[in-house]
């Protein structure tokens, strides 16, 4: 009984956290209090009524930049995860369902990808195809494929041995139909939780990349890029790091809580 209640509360807490961030990001798509890239003379000012989160080293309004940055970060994460999810599911479905040589080839390729630290791999990608928002999306998307593929594959290996799959075969369903109509819905619970975890990782990865100034290029804002800039002024303008940092914490914590309680 107690457990049930706790579960509900943490779920609600997670949803509240995520929706706060979402509101910021969504509004940031259409309207920000100031122009995010507009500089002014008020540099490194602490939070005030005019600038609730203060201003940065170039006098830009941090609230505006956080709103703009959050939406950029979200956009990157969503597309990244979608690429990983779709491609990973297809790869996982084929390898898990057929097994044999396809499985060996693709999974060894998968192993090769995962054996590098993901940030290193992204660095290589970016240094080859160049920096920028869309290149980052592509690089991170490819890096996210293996983890989804692995999860989906293991699920398919279990499911394909079940009698309902045999039954579908007997009814005359083709392999593709069995894979994506019969089995796929049964991987929903595991896909949902890996989706939320993947989304978290994508946000962190984007922040990491931008922090290494390989991601979103100035003057565009993203949460990671802002953190990276803020680092220099951590002692004299701590609010600079606080706003984007909190954004990331809210999102990651919120999604973790939600995914944990959805299980």
């Amino acid at each position, binding site marked *: 009984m107690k457990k049930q209640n706790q579960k509900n509360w943490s779920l609600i807490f997670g949803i509240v956290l995520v929706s706060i961030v979402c509101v910021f990001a969504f509004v940031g798509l259409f309207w920000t209090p100031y122009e995010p890239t507009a500089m002014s003379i008020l540099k490194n000012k602490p939070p005030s009524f005019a600038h609730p989160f203060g201003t940065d080293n170039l006098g830009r309004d941090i609230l505006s930049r956080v709103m703009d940055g959050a939406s950029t970060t979200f956009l990157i994460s969503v597309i990244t995860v979608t690429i990983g999810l779709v491609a990973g599911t297809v790869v996982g479905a084929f390898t898990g369902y057929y097994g044999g040589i396809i499985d060996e080839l693709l999974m060894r390729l998968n192993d090769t990808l995962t054996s590098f630290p993901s940030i290193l791999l992204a660095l290589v990608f970016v240094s080859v195809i160049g920096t920028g928002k869309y290149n980052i999306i592509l690089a991170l998307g490819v890096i996210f494929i293996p983890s989804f593929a692995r999860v989906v594959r293991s699920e398919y290996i279990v499911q394909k041995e*079940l009698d309902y799959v*045999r039954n579908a075969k007997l009814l005359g369903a083709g392999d593709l139909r069995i894979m994506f109509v019969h089995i796929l*819905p049964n991987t929903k619970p595991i896909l949902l939780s890996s989706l939320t975890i993947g989304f978290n990782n994508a946000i962190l990865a984007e922040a990491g990349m931008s922090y290494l100034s390989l991601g979103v290029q100035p003057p565009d804002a993203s949460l990671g890029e802002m953190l990276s800039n803020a680092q220099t002024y951590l002692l004299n303008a701590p609010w600079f790091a606080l706003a984007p940092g909190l954004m990331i914490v809210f999102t990651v914590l919120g999604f973790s809580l939600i995914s944990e309680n959805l299980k």
Partner: protein
Amino acid sequence: MDKKNSGNHRLLLELDHVSVGFPIGKREISVVTREVSFQVCEGEALGIVGESGSGKSVSMLAALGLLGNGGHVVSGNIRFYPEKEQCLVLNQFTEKQLCEIRGDDISMIFQEPMTSLNPVMTIGQQVEEMLVLHGNCPKEERRSKVLSMLSEAGLPDTEAMYGKYPHELSGGMRQRVMIAMAMICRPKLLIADEPTTALDVTIQAKILKLLKKFQKQYGTTIILISHDLGVIRNVCSRAVVMCAGEVVEQGNVETLFENPEKEYTKRLLAAALGKGGILRRENAPQENIIVKARDYSVYYEEREEQLFRQDETVKQEEEAEKVENQKSELEQTIEPKEIQNNLSKKAEIQKENRQESESELEQPIEPKEIQNNLSKKAESQKENRQESESELKQPTAQRKNQRYKIEMLKRRFRQFLSGKTKRRIVNKVSFDVYAGEIVGIVGESGCGKSTLAKAVAGLNPLTEGELYLDCKQPQMVFQDPYGSLNPSKTIGWLLTEPLRLKHCGTKEEQRKAVEQMLEKVGLGKEYYHRYPNTLSGGQRQRVAIAMAIMLKQKLIVLDEPVSALDVTVQEQILILLVELQKEFGLSYLFISHDMNVIHRICDRVFVMYQGEIVEKGNTDAVFENPQHEYTKKLLSARL
């Protein structure tokens, strides 16, 4: 309450109006057993019978405080009398106090010998653990005590057994280990919760014999929980019948089984003892052949180690039998003369039996009588073969009768990855199935009957030999109705799927056809939008059957379709199957390990043993006059 046949009449355990409840939500409690009362006297064997969900296990788990999920005794008392004038009220005990009683005074064995042993501890360690926890047995003596207990439980080569892990043993051996664990502290009461349900019939009989032996030898009281009335009748002197959390009837096994008073008991008895009447028709037509197999072998790809292990377990089982027989010979010297005589006779009979079965295996040494028997059999087999050859010689005549003929000729197979070996599961079987007939395949687990069924349905490509089917795509009903329906689809979707795949009719027509089919299998239209997990096992099996006949294929392979169901539900499903067979003119290949079910429903029966069909014939003929040793063994194990 009558207490005849009940040991020395001293009360041992008493359930006094016990209700057990599990909490749901915040304050509600769902009561699963209501006012259950019965008593067990010292030295007697009490059976608790009931279908799944009747609360038979729960009431015993409550006695041991093993309920879990917050379950507890809501009202009533469970009293245990370990000594004279000592009364323990178990439901008021703390966990610590219960720990002292569990395993020491009361012990329990469970249904699944696979999961009730710890996979990372050796057999010896696990049995010894009981002594560590309970006995005041000094360290040095423990090992020898464990070894002697293992051999008492009928395990061969105890020294080696001590260091083995559970996965190295067969199901029957594991159950013996469980019994050894349960008995090593010489408990006063042994609770056996479906101890033989997961085992083959012939092994089942041996395990029950072992339980009876312990009961006699140590005066252990046994409470045997089972859904199988045969098992109860074999072991117990008294029985309690439970239904929906209540005691329906209790009394002496003989009186209870011969003159049941309550309607429920009667129904249960009728269903369980195969007295529900024979469902098949008198004369099945034998005109058109729908399945014809000649020298048909089926293989499985397997890792090498596994292959080795299976052989090993068979060997173990045989050894166990030998050990037990030797035991009974040894016991003669200790027991009084009368029993001795009795026993020696039994031992002789057993010896003879064994000799017979051995001779069966080694043809050259066999005695004349059996030889005659066998040669007759061989002749009849020859005749059969000749017949079938003549059939093969006139293929043109038959083609006219057969609408479709799928030929699966000597499929070549390759070995993809090293380390995998093909194991021949079904070994050159030849048989015919006629259209409109129900043919049973009976045998123990591992004999290849399921493998054969799947191969006939086309689910196993590793085959050799010939198989002709006069049916485009045979459909199949699987044993486990929880695995054979896709849990993420509605019943309606599932039943429409075959039509969708074959592009039959418009959406409206499809829906209508599905609704009709739902009515046919005894569900209603209202099930269209429900998900499989909201249905009971029997209802799911109905859906599975509906799915199989949706495409109107003439051949349906039924792989243990009622084994996972309660007896009364079994009855309904069997009736449904026979009705549908008549209505649609279907042919069934009915796989089962249950001789009663086979007897009731099948026109003809094939007996399979170690991958071969050792006997086939009309059901009545096989049941009344079995020819092969193995068939006799199966029939005698029927209890």
